[in-house]
């Protein structure tokens, strides 16, 4: 009797053991857990995009706890599990537009309105997307996959998730993590190329201070912006519609409560859900593939191309601008969206060469134009390849 009870206990313990994470762990899980820990470390120690890297890093830990596939509905890819339900916002593509609503409600387009030619820098930096697209095609990716990978160069996490969920859902985890990782690493990636492509004289260019912008202009901007860009690229409507709507909430002056909700509690909630689910979607079994490594390489390359394209475009543009109207090429990097980090980098690098030359307000122009440009580019890719 006692012996059979012990056998029963032993068998149950053995069965229990098969359910533990320790039993089901693979080297892949451990690698991904280390990646998650690295993200959390970078966010806390160096404050690299902590709002993104903490949720994503912790999400990677959550997504890589090994478990027995016994239909317990715990994994993010198991239909009906809590994580799977939260993940719907990513797969169905409705988190990114809500993030854009918040971005619109917190973005001041004054710098862009006061000096509209800066918009063209935001357009030039989108070469990063298509440079990566060309290289991805040569590496053997399908056109739709290459489009989804290329959008990493737009340096816009929500746009990357939105487009990859439509064009290449199987690559979305790698694309999202890559986009957010490189956005966090913008302070490391961009400055060397900015210095490499500019002369000392160019770095010292002082730009005319932006004029004051009237509230009427600020109100007209989101309306005209929406009508113009979406009539041109209707497939960009979910992102651009929400971006400009959020901005109108901010600038109309009569919907302060709505604007505060959009740029506060709403965007915070969605950022948490987006970050944690994107992180959790990197389950080692789905994520650790050769394609993911290629995507990481292409992502880095796309950021480099975008930075160089922005800086070189300003240099080119300066050839036709009169003295006094010249643009400091150090703001060219800000054409990749990554708001406001890339603009901050223009400021930091500019101050290294002239401690009284503040470029931040000028860099915000191409920076927000980059958001519009990358959303338009995403719309074009979706229209062509979707």
């Amino acid at each position, binding site marked *: 009797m006692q012996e059979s009870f012990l056998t029963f206990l032993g068998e149950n313990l053995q069965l229990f053991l098969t359910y533990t994470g320790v039993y089901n762990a693979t080297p892949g899980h451990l690698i991904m857990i280390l990646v998650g820990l690295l993200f959390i470390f970078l966010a806390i120690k160096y404050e690299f995009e902590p709002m993104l890297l903490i949720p994503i890093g912790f999400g990677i830990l959550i997504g890589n706890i090994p478990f027995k596939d016994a239909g317990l509905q715990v994994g993010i890819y198991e239909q009906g599990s809590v994580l799977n339900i939260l993940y719907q916002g990513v797969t169905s593509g409705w988190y990114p537009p809500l993030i854009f609503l918040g971005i619109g409600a917190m973005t001041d387009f004054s710098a*862009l*309105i*006061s000096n*509209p*030619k800066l*918009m*063209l820098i*935001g*357009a*030039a930096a*989108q*070469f990063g*997307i*298509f*440079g990566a*697209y*060309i290289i991805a*095609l*040569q590496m053997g990716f*399908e*056109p*739709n996959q*290459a*489009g989804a990978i290329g959008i990493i160069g737009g340096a816009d996490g929500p746009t990357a998730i939105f487009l990859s969920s439509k064009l290449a859902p199987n690559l979305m985890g790698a694309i999202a993590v890559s986009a957010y990782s490189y956005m966090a690493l913008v302070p490391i990636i961009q400055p060397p190329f900015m210095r490499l492509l500019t002369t000392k004289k160019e770095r010292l260019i002082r730009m*005319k*201070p*932006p*004029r*004051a*912008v*009237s509230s*009427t*202009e600020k109100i*007209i*901007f989101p309306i*005209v*912006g929406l009508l*113009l*860009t979406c009539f*041109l*690229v209707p497939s960009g409507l979910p992102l651009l519609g929400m971006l400009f709507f959020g901005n109108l909430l901010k600038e109309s002056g009569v919907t302060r409560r709505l604007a505060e909700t959009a740029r506060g509690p709403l965007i915070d909630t969605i950022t948490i859900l987006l970050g944690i689910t994107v992180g959790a979607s990197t389950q080692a079994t789905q994520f650790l593939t050769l394609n993911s490594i290629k995507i990481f390489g292409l992502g880095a390359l796309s950021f480099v191309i975008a930075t160089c394209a922005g800086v070189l475009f300003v240099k080119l543009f300066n050839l036709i601008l009169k003295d006094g109207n010249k643009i400091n090429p150090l703001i060219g990097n800000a054409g990749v969206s990554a708001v406001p980090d890339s603009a901050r980098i223009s400021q930091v690098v500019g101050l290294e060469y002239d401690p009284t030359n503040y470029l931040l*307000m000028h860099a915000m122009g191409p920076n927000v*134009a980059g958001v*519009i*440009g990358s959303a*338009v*580019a995403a719309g*074009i*890719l979706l229209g*062509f*390849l*979707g």
Partner: protein
Amino acid sequence: MINKKIGVLLLFALLISFGAKAQSATSMRINEVLVINEDNFVDDYGKRHGWIELFNSSAGTVNIAGCYLTDDKNNPMKYPIPKGDVLTQIQPRQHTLFWADGQPDRGTFHVNFILDPFKENYIALYDADGKTLIDEVTIPAGQLADISYGRVIDGKEEWAQLKKVTPSTNNLTLDSNDKIDNFRQNDSFGIGMTVTAMAVVFLGLFLLYIIFKQIGRLSISASKRNAQKAAGTTSISVDAGQESGELFAAIATALYEMSDDNHDIEHTVLTIHKVQRTYSPWSSKLYGLRQTPHK
């Protein structure tokens, strides 16, 4: 004021009704018809009959309950599609099948008429009012057994005898994505995509640039005019309205510093401000205190 409100409400109602129209039964299409069913799809009773496939061409769910199917031009309300059946909710871009067996007692999807294999068959779908024609088709006589007559592409105009019978599914299924194939074949280096897409991105932002350059000019001249009106003079500086953010920042800083200098906490200096209290019976304590209660 009330008229204005009524106007706004009416406009709102009108807009809503337009929106509702977009996803009403008017989006339904008769999509495929099989007149002679000898060795084809069987119904839920295991029987073979002719059938009529409807297709929801919209991007929203449509409830066809209350609409009418008919084979008689003079009797548009011949078969009312029963209400209260959850299956009459047709999902976006999805299909549903009606059996033309003349036995409506067998369920919602069994109509009270049959398709005649020897002559042409008229089929129509009417909206719930019984008057609005949503879609109609005349199936030519002489249909072959087990060959359906339908739209070549779901919801589109062209009808033909279909190569494949496809009840409750798409009439044309694709083995590949044409768009992607096209890019794979004609733009293997991605140059075409890059040139086109960058041209569109530049065009979009260039147009924005042009428009806001003009709006900026108008805004500056408007602010000049306003300043002239306010000053009552015609000589306004050319730079009016062009003040930089730095100027405002300098003024704000000066104001801040001036207000900061007014404080009375300074080392070794004692500032005494006269305390003034103006009397008012409303603020008099006397009236605010509770009087000794009278018994």
